């Protein structure tokens, strides 16, 4: 598979930008995986599949491919977008807010809070520091 051309135009040096993008992607994937897992455990696999599908649809409708060059959110498991990390942060914040909103409707406030809290507390130090800056996984 050929690597798409870099879309990085930001202020950070390319190596630092790539690291930041990788960490942001890890954090976003962690949130998605934990929410999906909680939905599958408590509501069943088809609801978890619908959650994934809804998030993919949202990303598709909100310029995911145009901004990152990746076809779907699932492609994040294989590749990290190579764009300005500030732009990637804003994309992930938007999508993660949407993911939390759907998960909240599915799980209810109390269970969602519990899932977010345990995800937050289990973050490794490097991601916890990043999360403290971007609040992708809020401690609620």
């Amino acid at each position, binding site marked *: 598979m050929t690597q798409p051309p870099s879309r990085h135009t930001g202020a950070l040096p390319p190596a630092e930008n790539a690291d930041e993008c990788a960490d942001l992607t890890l954090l976003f994937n962690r949130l998605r995986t934990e929410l999906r897992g909680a939905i599958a455990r408590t509501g069943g696999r088809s609801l978890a599949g619908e959650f994934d599908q809804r998030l993919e649809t949202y990303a598709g409708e909100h310029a995911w491919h145009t901004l990152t060059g990746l076809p779907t959110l699932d492609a994040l498991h294989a590749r990290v977008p190579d764009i300005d990390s500030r732009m990637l942060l804003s994309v992930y914040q938007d999508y993660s807010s949407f993911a939390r*909103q759907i998960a909240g409707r599915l799980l209810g406030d109390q269970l969602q809070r519990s899932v977010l809290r345990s995800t937050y507390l289990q973050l490794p130090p490097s991601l916890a520091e990043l999360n403290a800056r971007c609040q992708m996984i809020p401690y609620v």
Partner: protein
Amino acid sequence: MSSRGWPARAGVLIVLACFIGIYMVQPGGTRLLEILANTLNTAAASLGAVLLLAASTRFDRGLVQRRAWLLLGSGMTLWAIAELVWAYLQIVIGQGVPYPSPADMIWSIGFIPLILGLSAGHRSLGVRLSNRQRVLTVLVYVLLLATLAIGLLGPMYADLPPASWPEAVIGAGYLVGDLTLAFIAMLSLAVLWNGLIGRPWPPIAVGLLLFAISDTVFAYAAWKGLYAVGGNLLSGVIDVAYLAAYLSIALGAYRQVTLRLADVPVRESFSTTEA
């Protein structure tokens, strides 16, 4: 609330309304009513069992929730068998059905998987209840238990001859078992009430509360020698409450089987500042 679920709710209400109507008019006499009541109870319990078992298939193998719904389905299957045995005894033997009967033994055994299933399901949520929720649910449980035990079972069993103790034990066992089931269902409901996955729990909790009330009233009616299908208002209340309880649980299981994300509105236009 989902607009997709209305046919099931309407179906339950129509069945109940028809049953009440037939109960009042009694076309064909009490014999036919007895057959109808027993058939409906067995059918509703079987439907509940099938739907509870079907609900378990929505979860991947190895998940606690799969086991929990499987246990609920097994418990309800035992209750459906008990209904069948009870129907046989009531229709074939008639007024001379012993209490406790073999059906009561099966009902009692059915409590075990039901309680295990509900508690496993609740524990797997991994959520600690707030103090207010804990106090409220315990309060409701204790109040109902005290009201039914002191108001009904106490006077009934106070001067009971030793030969009737099995009757007292079964009556008290039903009360404690039903209320325990309703209590655990209420705990799950308290955690999940505003989420889509909480939708099965209101009808299930209502069904279990109806069992607690109708089982206790039945124990009272049996003690007084009042229970006879179609014979009086008290028997009518018991029979309608039993059917409503089974249908309510079946409705809850149906909701679990048919949960869809499309049932909840999600705002597509979104701001990144929203938490």
